[in-house]
């Protein structure tokens, strides 16, 4: 881990511990996530998703601290954390099935709506403008991520495209920290390319933002992330450039051992 700060970390995990009953999922996680892409990899059950749940307010750690731009997120509800600029996606996409893709994306814009529901009810110009701007931004994001037919109902899309819609929904809030939980699982090669291009375009526009990616597709991690951290049995065992990390004998052992144990 670097001791000299290249850029201020967007999020810091400081000695985070979390146990479910007697099962210690996060033993001691310390990690600085800086602007740009950071991969979080590790075998199944290493605690990757638990890390995301701790940052996004869904779980409270037993010990340690998680700081977003220096400010602790502990004790805050997911909604408050989201309002601080943390967006996330889920392993299995969760969309409103009968709404169109673009309207699903628009649900993600809570930080940008300045009008209240009363203004909307009364059809005030500010509400109309807000709504129009959000719709245009939602279309633009879906376009950037390469999704065709943005007006089709969400449940008419294959799972891969639903994940893309979920990413666009997370981006609509202009997050300071974007958390992607296995974004490429279930995506075809073409979709992965679109996702990579879209995310690259977005980070180019938002150089201050950090993107944390949990992914089993290590090629995707190598393509996107200058650094990757490896989580194993609730500890960060190493972090660095993906190509170095993946050659690390400790990592290889962790992965192979786990893979054999998991049988896949």
């Amino acid at each position, binding site marked *: 881990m670097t001791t000299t700060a290249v850029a201020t970390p967007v999020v810091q995990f400081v000695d985070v511990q979390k146990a479910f009953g007697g099962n210690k999922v996060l033993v001691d996680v310390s990690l600085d996530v800086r602007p740009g892409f950071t991969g979080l990899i590790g075998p199944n059950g290493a605690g990757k998703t638990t890390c995301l749940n701790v940052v996004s307010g869904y779980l409270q750690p037993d010990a340690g601290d998680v700081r*977003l731009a*220096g400010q602790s997120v502990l004790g805050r509800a997911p909604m408050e954390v989201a309002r601080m600029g943390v967006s996330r996606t889920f392993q299995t996409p*969760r969309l409103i099935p*009968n709404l169109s893709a673009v309207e699903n994306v628009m*649900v993600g814009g809570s930080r940008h709506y300045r009008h209240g529901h009363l203004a909307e009810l009364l059809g005030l110009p500010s509400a109309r403008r807000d709504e129009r701007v959000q719709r245009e931004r939602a279309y*633009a994001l879906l*376009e950037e991520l390469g999704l065709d037919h943005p007006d089709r109902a969400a449940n008419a899309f294959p799972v891969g495209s639903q994940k893309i819609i979920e990413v666009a929904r997370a981006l609509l809030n202009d997050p300071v920290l974007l958390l992607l939980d296995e974004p490429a699982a279930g995506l075809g090669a073409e979709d992965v390319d679109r996702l990579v291009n879209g995310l690259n375009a977005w980070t180019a526009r938002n150089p201050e933002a950090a993107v944390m990616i949990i992914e089993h597709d290590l090629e995707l991690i190598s393509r996107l992330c200058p650094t990757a951290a490896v989580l194993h049995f609730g500890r960060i065992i190493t972090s660095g450039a993906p190509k170095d990390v993946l050659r690390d004998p400790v990592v290889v052992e962790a992965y192979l051992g786990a893979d054999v144990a998991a049988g896949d």
Partner: protein
Amino acid sequence: MSETAQQVAAAKAVPPGDGPSGLAGAGIAANTVPGRTTGGSSTRKGIIAIIVLLALFAVPFVANTYVVFVVSLTLVYAVSTLGFNLLVGWSGQIGLAHAALFAVGAYGSAIGVEYGIPFLLTIPLAGIVAAVLALVIGFPAIRLRGFFLAIATLALGMAIVELLTMARPLTGGGGGMSVNVWSLPGITTAASTYFVVLAVAAIMFFLMRRALLGRFGRTLQAVRDLGQLTGSLGVSALRYRLVAFALSGFIAAVAGTLYGQLQTFIFPAMFQMNLLVPMLVMVFVGGAGSMWGPVVGAAFAIVLIEFFQDLGDQQAIAYGLVLMLAISVLPGGLTSLARRVGDSRFMARLRRREVAE
């Protein structure tokens, strides 16, 4: 702290369609939604709305008193179902206090008029009283789901009707009370009530359509389908569930005030299971979570009520059977039929043939 603030500010400062997203912005024009953002279609919808309103406005001039009464009742049920559907269909909460809140509207307005409040003013006032009551019911209820929510709200609803029965000096107890019917000068009472009902229905549907097809409706559906995960979108699921309760209660009572005017005599037994079950039928037959389902459901229920009139106590069973049938055979309600037909293979073949020719 200041770091976050700056980043937030920086993020907000990026206008849409600026910089690299400019190329994406170019794609927007090509992707315009037909039927949502295009001007032509919304004018067409506006024209249809005006024609329907004019046709409804003409009813008292061309139809007899009975028809006027039936259409009035349909509109009252449609407004009531608009509120019930908001709670059950859009926010996904099976709250069963709707008939009781409807009663609060009917009684609230009738009592208010007796105390010298102008009838038209009692419509929003009764709505506000019911909204507050719905908040009280909703506050514990929004933490419950499914079966438990249904039972809790059903019990609280029954308690409200019981309270109305007990408040004999105000409500006349189980024997009921007569309602002072408000009337416009120069026309028959039936026509006058009809115009009030029509005006209220038009306003309610106009406003709710705007809210439900906009951000409010989207967020409600997100709360329904995503539950607590909406937190990660910066949305408080509990708050929206509570607002849905309050708004639904408000609309129920507004419909209730009009119901009292139509019936001219109200008693507690009108607002029990024998009303709640048909109300559920209206929601599910029309289509839970659909915009115009309440109108279709109310019209269907009116016919049903006429059919089942002679069944007496067995009515509830008959409605229950209809409800079960509706949910199992047509879960999307009658309004989903149009879409289903449109999506069917038969229609696809027709379209292909048209293209070929």
